[in-house]
């Protein structure tokens, strides 16, 4: 069975500093990997996804993530954060289940950007 671990529940960071949100997964088969973002009082939206090919994936708002198969990680990074990046970030893994695919989400990491 697959699982997703987001190693930090909260990450406080100053504006314009770099940030990395960590995600590790466990799965015995090939997976698709996602990062979703939930801004305050809004629904979840896709930030980026890894399907195949280049292990470095670029998403919206200057975020990127790197797939590392040997470490089963998919960490999210941004070189310089803004106040508007304050949100909750969810890592997700999609794996084949009976009849289709099931997506498992991590517990989320709350990014808090301070001025």
């Amino acid at each position, binding site marked *: 069975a697959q699982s997703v671990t987001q190693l930090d529940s909260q990450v406080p960071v100053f504006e314009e500093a770099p940030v990395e949100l960590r995600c590790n997964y466990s799965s015995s088969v090939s997976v698709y990997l996602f990062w979703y973002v939930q801004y305050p009082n809004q629904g*979840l939206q896709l930030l980026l996804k890894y399907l195949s090919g280049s292990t470095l994936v670029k998403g919206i708002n200057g975020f990127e993530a790197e797939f590392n198969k040997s470490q089963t990680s998919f960490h999210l990074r941004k070189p310089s954060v803004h106040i508007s990046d304050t949100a909750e970030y969810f890592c997700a893994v999609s794996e*084949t289940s009976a009849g289709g695919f099931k997506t498992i989400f991590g517990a989320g990491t709350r990014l808090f950007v301070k001025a």
Partner: protein
Amino acid sequence: GAGVSQSPSNKVTEKGKDVELRCDPISGHTALYWYRQSLGQGLEFLIYFQGNSAPDKSGLPSDRFSAERTGGSVSTLTIQRTQQEDSAVYLCASSSSGEGYNEQFFGPGTRLTVL
């Protein structure tokens, strides 16, 4: 509609009552997912519908929970004999197909409070 809609947006009920939560997916989307979001616990997978296939109910926490999807479109999540631990935000998402690489589009959620 332009996006996934859910109703009601808020529901307050008394312990022991039954509740029904509704989800209208994006038109044409064949896959529909229900999740539960509890404070500090991330998104918990509940159930997944894909086309005419039998739903994946593996995430339903007890037999008090059930869901149906009529005509391949609207879905209703029913919780019978609600308990206080059922209090959470219930999220619905849809995607264009059941393939695991597809983005899920989320609704705004229904906040359920069981008194």
